């Protein structure tokens, strides 16, 4: 069977991860990338990026949209601190595709606005 953690530990795990986004001097970013890791759009987290976890779930504060995306086809998103250190990577799909983040379109044109209206991080069970 797999290892499990009590809720208090899971909260600590979630906080540990999402707090890494705040490690740099400035706000962290949520960078959408192509399968080849090329930047498509970069959104900016609040600073701090997430509130304290509850029931193993940390919820992001407001994320500032990228009003002028580089463009490309998104397959993943990478949460980074302002120094570029990666905190976590997650999948991105079109709505209904089952990705960690679902967008109404993963095909982004240059200068298109890209936003995420809500984001949560759930710690391992």
């Amino acid at each position: 069977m797999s290892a499990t953690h009590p809720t208090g530990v899971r909260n600590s795990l979630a906080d540990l991860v999402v707090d890494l986004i705040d490690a740099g001097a400035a706000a962290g970013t949520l960078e959408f990338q192509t399968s080849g890791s090329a930047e498509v759009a970069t959104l900016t987290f609040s600073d701090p990026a997430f509130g304290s976890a509850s029931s193993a779930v940390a919820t992001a504060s407001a994320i500032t949209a990228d009003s002028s995306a580089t463009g490309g086809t998104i397959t993943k998103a990478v949460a980074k601190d302002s120094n570029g250190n990666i905190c976590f990577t997650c999948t991105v799909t079109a709505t209904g595709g089952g990705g960690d983040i679902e967008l109404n379109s993963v095909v982004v044109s240059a200068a298109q606005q890209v936003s995420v209206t809500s984001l949560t991080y759930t710690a391992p069970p």
Partner: protein
Amino acid sequence: MALTLGVNSGFVTTAPSADPAGTGVTIDGSSVVTKHTSPANAAKITSIGWYRESGTNGANFEVALYSDLAGVPVTRLFVDNTNSTTSNGWVTVAVDWAISASTAYWLAVQMDAHSGSSGIDTAASGGAGYDAQTSQTTLNDPYGGGLVADADGMAAIYALVQLNVTGTGAVIAQSADAAGSGVSKSSGSGNVVAGSADAAGAGVAQWLAAGAVSAQAADAAGVGISKSSGSGNVIAGAADAAGVGVSRSVGGGAPQASAAVVDGDGITKSLGTGAVLAQAAAVDGDGAVTAANVVGSGAVSAQAASVDGDGAVSDSAITGTGDVRASASTISGMGLVEGDQPQSSGGGKFRKRPAWIVPMHPRPYMPIITGSGDVRAGSASVRARGEKKMSARQRAFVAGA
């Protein structure tokens, strides 16, 4: 195909190409507007198109976007007023007009009067509003005209809209691996440390390639070991696949263990080439480590022995015809007198040896002086029994001649 809002009339996300097969009305010398509500997340209009169902005159035409007020076009928000084409079918104009999402707008086309005639496709139902004004030389601001001609009509005018990309996320961290549950597992190179189960079972970190593995729990084969199939070192304090209480290296690594054994005989055993160190027990029940039990080339050291479950060195390991020497009190304490021949036993064999008093010999030990034995043990015990009334267990040294 029919004229349809969101497909070939109003706001669309994909430009139509087919003939909408609507009803043609005169566009030259007139203005035509059609209403639609922009989609959620709409950001801007990148192109305006209208279906010129007839006419090839290259007269100027204008396209524009009007605001809506109570179902009537009012303010001209954007206009592109210098365009011309001699083609019919879908006629397009590239624009870059920022709009609001989920907002009602009127799309407009006006074409200057010209010789011959040009028409635009329309439909009398299925739309959100349609109006036309004749004798127009431009798209006015405000639009004017009062109530619209058809509240559910529409014209074949589309606005290709670009949506903002938006979404939501729920990132869920997982602990299980592809094979099952609760482990980090590497098929490549690197160190793996895990405290939970792997694909094969419960509670182990398993290393399939080269590298060091540390674990305190069970492996695929059984209980309590970390196991390396590669060349890494394995350190464990518990049992291995073969039995109990040993770490075992299948590769070339050096196993180290402070406990028990393979084959149930109190020794660590190496299947590879590593050196085996053990502080207990032996092999084959005879208090010795036999060469046969060293499968590899490693050195085997043992400091103690136990025999047959009776705490004695078996006679088969004692060769020759030696005697037994002890202090007078030891001899006396066993009910013997010097010259008696107590019987030592072991391995089901019995041997009589004369007992001799050695002054100042430490009690209670009784060294058995063998003829040519080469078995040495620092704490081996011997059950010695006299012919008449010896029944006490005594300690003895066994030493080579």
